[in-house]
Structures are given as structure tokens and as C-alpha cells.
């Protein structure tokens, strides 16, 4: 098993104003899985994503990733886990506007301590793979939304992570670009990458092998009565 969440709870705020974001969430992911997690806004999707991505720590419960207990780690160890084991794809791409596509993709390699030539070589290969081999020196402002998201995917994959975490990857894209991104996810999954995708769009979720639902912080693998497809 690649990843296991056991009874994860996460609350925000204190006293009367406590907001429960995750309630005893359990999740098991095997290597090579392609999972979509669906839920309406405010259901705890993003919190789940943050916990899975080691950006946030659970208040209770255990999180085992790749055989390591994440719950007990400090800040520096967590950033190391993010660097080597997790690739992020965001709804809003989160590319650095002042850097070329190549430099954006190469960014995580700087923190991994890879030398400049090696970084550029690997970043160029990664961009080639997402079909942007011709646009290495383009700035984000010169790229379309779909192209930007593909740059972001190349960046997420550059360190060969164990999981690709995507938060509404098609949320800011038109349908055609969205399909291209889904196509890319499918291809990456076929090559063995584990993908966890958060979305509120059932059409997008269909691309995954398995769909899970989150409602009011509770995660389940069947569709609850009060969640409506959008």
C-alpha cells in the first residue's frame, strides 16, 4: 500500500467557532491507483488535499505515506517529503510569472540540489513529454491556460513523485484543454503514476478508476444521499 489515512481529524478555530473539516477520514491508496475525490464546496476537499500533500497536519489520526509516518514529522522533513514524493497540480496553475516554462519546471530540482545543466536537461524532457517541447523559453503569459496547466504538470512530475495530487486541475480550463489535461493524467497513470484528483465535476471524476465522496468532512466510497452532482 502506498498511502493510508487512518481516522484523520482536522478542526479549525477554537471554542464555539470550531469548524470540523475532516472527521475520522480513512483512505487507502495503492500504487498505480487513479482516484477522484468529489464533494461540494466546504465539504473538506481542500483540507484533505492539504493533509495528503503534507502541507497541513492532522489533529489526530495517522498518515502513512510510502511506509513513513508523516504525522510525526517536523517542518523540514515535511518539505523534504513534498519535494521528493508529492507532485502538486493546482487549479490556478501557480506558475512563476517572471520565469520561463523551462525554469518553472526546473524549480523543484533547485531545492533537490540538482546541477544547472542536469536541471535544464530534465526540465526540457519533462516539457517534451507534455507536448510543450517547442515552448521551453515561453513565459506563462505567452501560454494558453491548457499549456500553463501542462507546464504545471511537467513541474509536478519532474522529481518522479510517488503521488500526483491535483486540486481541480480543469477548474480554470475550457473543455478542450480540460480533455487534454485528463488525457495527460490518464497517460501518466498508465505509466504507473498514482493520481489523486479533487474535483466537483462528475464528468472529470469519470476519468478516474475510482471515485470517492466527501461530505461534511466525512469520506466514503459511495455516493451519499445529500450530495448532488453538478
Amino acid at each position, binding site marked *: 500500500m502506498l498511502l493510508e489515512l487512518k481516522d484523520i481529524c482536522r478542526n479549525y478555530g477554537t471554542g464555539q467557532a470550531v469548524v470540523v473539516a475532516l472527521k475520522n477520514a480513512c483512505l487507502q491508496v495503492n500504487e498505480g491507483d487513479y482516484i477522484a475525490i468529489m464533494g461540494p464546496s466546504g465539504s473538506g476537499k481542500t483540507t484533505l488535499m*492539504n493533509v495528503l*500533500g503534507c*502541507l*497541513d497536519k492532522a489533529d489526530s489520526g495517522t498518515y502513512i505515506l510510502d511506509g513513513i509516518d508523516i504525522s510525526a514529522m517536523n*517542518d*523540514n522533513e515535511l*518539505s*523534504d*517529503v*513534498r*519535494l*521528493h514524493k*508529492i507532485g*502538486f497540480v*493546482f487549479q*490556478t496553475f*501557480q506558475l*512563476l510569472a*517572471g520565469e520561463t516554462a523551462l525554469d518553472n519546471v526546473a*524549480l*523543484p530540482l*533547485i*531545492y*533537490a540540489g540538482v546541477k*544547472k545543466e542536469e536541471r535544464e536537461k530534465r526540465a526540457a524532457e519533462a516539457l517534451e513529454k507534455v507536448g510543450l517541447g517547442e515552448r521551453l523559453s515561453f513565459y506563462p503569459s505567452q501560454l494558453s491556460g491548457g499549456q500553463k496547466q501542462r507546464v504545471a504538470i511537467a*513541474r*509536478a512530475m519532474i*522529481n518522479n513523485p510517488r503521488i500526483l495530487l491535483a486540486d481541480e486541475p480543469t477548474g480554470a480550463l475550457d473543455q478542450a484543454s480540460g480533455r487534454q489535461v485528463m488525457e495527460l493524467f490518464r497517460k501518466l497513470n498508465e505509466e504507473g503514476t498514482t493520481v489523486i484528483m479533487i474535483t466537483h465535476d462528475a464528468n472529470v471524476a469519470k476519468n478516474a478508476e475510482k471515485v470517492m465522496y466527501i461530505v461534511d468532512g466525512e469520506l466514503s466510497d459511495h455516493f451519499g444521499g445529500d450530495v448532488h452532482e453538478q
Partner: protein
Amino acid sequence: MIENIRLSFRGILSHKMRSFLTMLGIIIGIAAIIAIVSTIQGTNEQIQKNLIGSGVNNVRISLNQGDWEYDYSSGIPDGIVPVTDEQLADLRKIRHAENVSLYHQRQDYDGVYHAATSLSGGYVMGIDTSYLDAAGLQIRSGRGISSEDLLHFRKVCLLDTDSSNSLFQGEDPLNQTIEIRGEPFVIVGTVGDKESFQPLIKTMTDYYTYSGEKSGKVYIPSTCWPVLYQYDEPEYVVIRADKTENMTAIGKDAESILNQNISGDYTYKAQNLMEQAKQIQQLSQSTNTMLIWIAAISLLVGGIGVMNIMLVSFTERTSEIGLKKAIGAPKKAILIQFLTEAVVLTSLGGILGVITGIILAYLISNLNGTPVAISVPASVFAVAFSMAIGIVFGILPSYKAANLDPIEALRRE
């Protein structure tokens, strides 16, 4: 690290206006300090040059009665004897002394004539072959005093530029005869200060000091001295130091050698030009120290400006920081990135400030006529100091950036 510096430069260049305004405080502060320091240094060098003469560096030691230089025209005091051979040998052994010469000197108000022209207030100097070199003088025409002149008591003499001008009014004095105390002396040469000596007279005090020196000198072989004046008259000593800095020490050493066998009211004293120069320098320095403090305040303000801009730029770049943390940048990397940016920014400001300061110093010197000496250590220090400002005022924003919560940062768009 190089990567960080490169990124900082890119960041600075992509916000040219903002970066420039940030640096402005540092630029002005550093420029003011460099301009002030350069002007002080220039003035100091000028003072030193005026009083001591660059490249001359000679220390003169004379007998003093109380606080006043003793005038041998009123007779030789009891117990004061000429400098002994042992003393001379000791004088020659003083460290950093390049040449030592003994000489006689007399201000002879009415003793030197060419026809009916008198060299009033001029000095007669009894010298040997070593004097010109020790005193930093150059032969301008003819020859110097030779050992034959000394050996055969030849009545020959040298004039300096001032005495030659007073006695001959531009006429060539060579081979002419003048009278000193009624004795005829043939002029065999003229001497002058080394060319590097360029006095600058700015105040009335300067004028009096300098004009006292300018009343003209006539140099005769020291062996002729007793013929004109008196036997066994003690000599003055002139020592040429290798460096200006060593003049004070040489003067002290020479005093202690010469004062070994005299007592009472009389002492040998070195004419301490170095000390005088220092006193004047201190005077100008203390006024300028205040100016430096004022400039330092502007540097402080500049530093606060840097901190402000860093804080602004950090708010602007929250999502960048959030992303970097999300993809695995450790705290340290973010801290170093921001700190490098601050240091690069302030160092750049420092370098620009040094350049501006140098330009400013030359402008001031053009307006005021004060000399400029660009101080390399001060410039290096200024740049190092602005780097330090970058670190001090960059640490707070950088620390804030490094500790940013990535979730919070990514949420803000």
C-alpha cells in the same frame, strides 16, 4: 547561492523603479559618507603636504631655551657643546633615518649684501656635502658644496630661489659675488625645493608660516662658519625620514641622543611638523565627524526603506512563496532567497553610492577648491556596510516569508 544571486538580480531588474527607490536611501547615505571622507582625506593630505612637503620628510632638531628656539647670535650657552662624533654616529643609527646632516643656521638681519641690496631677514646656513640631500633640496643650477670647498675653506656659496630673487631680481646669480659679513663669497650654484613640493596658502596663518620660511637662505661651507660667526658653535641637525609617519619617532630618538649631555634650561627639540599637521587635521576632522553622523542617519533611514520594500514585496509574492513551499522548498531556502535579495539590493545601492560619492567629492572640490583623496578602504567599508544593512533589515521580512503558512499563501491569489 549563485542561483539565488541570479534570481535576485532578475527580481531587481523586473522592478527597476521600485528597486531604485529602495536603494535611493542607501545610495544617498553612502554617497554622503564617501564624499565627506574623501574631502577630509584630501584636506588632510594637503595639510600634511603643505607643512611637511611631500617626499621631503625632514626632521629638524634645534636647541631650545624654554619654549623658544635658541639664537646663537647671543653667544654659546654654558655647557652646550657641538654635536660629538659618537652622537652623530648614534643619530645615523636611528631606524628609518635615511640621511643625517649637521648644519649651522643664523638669521642675519643685515649681513648679506649684493652691491647695495641687502637680504634682510635672510638666513645664512653653514652646511656640508650631505645637507642638500638630507634637507630635500635640489640643485637648480651650478653645483653644490663639495668636500674640496670644505677642506680648503673656499668662500663659495649657494642661493635658494628666494634669496636669489631678492638679491638679483631675476638676473643669473652664478659666478657673481656677494658679501656676507664683509667677506666676499662666490655663488657657485642655486638650489630649490624638490619639484614635488607645492605649497598651498589658504589662510593668513598659512601665509605667515610660509613666508617666514621664504625669506631666503644663503648656504656656505660649514668650515667657513667660524670665520663669519664664532668657533665651536653647536650645530642644528636635519634628518630625512623614509616615511612621513616615522618623522615623530625619529624626532624623539634624535632628541634623546642630543639631550644626553646637556642640562638646565636648555633642551634639543625636534621641530614636530607631523604633530602640527595632526593638530590641524584633527580640527577639520572633528567638524566632519558630525557630518558623517548625519550621513549615517540617512543610511539608517535607507535601511528602514529596504525593510519596508521587502515587506511589501513579500506580501506581493505570497503565492510565489506558498508555491515554493508546496513544491518542497525548505524554510532555509526561502529565508536565504529573501536575504540574498536584500543583500544584493543594498550592496548594489552601496556600489552606486560609492560612485555617486566620488563624483560628489570631485564636484565639491571643484566648487570649494579643496583637494580630493578617494579612500579605497572607506569605499570597501561602505559597500560592506551596506551589505550588513541588507542583512540586518532583510532578516525580519525574510524570516516572515520563510515562516509563511503555504496553505494560507496558496489561498491568496
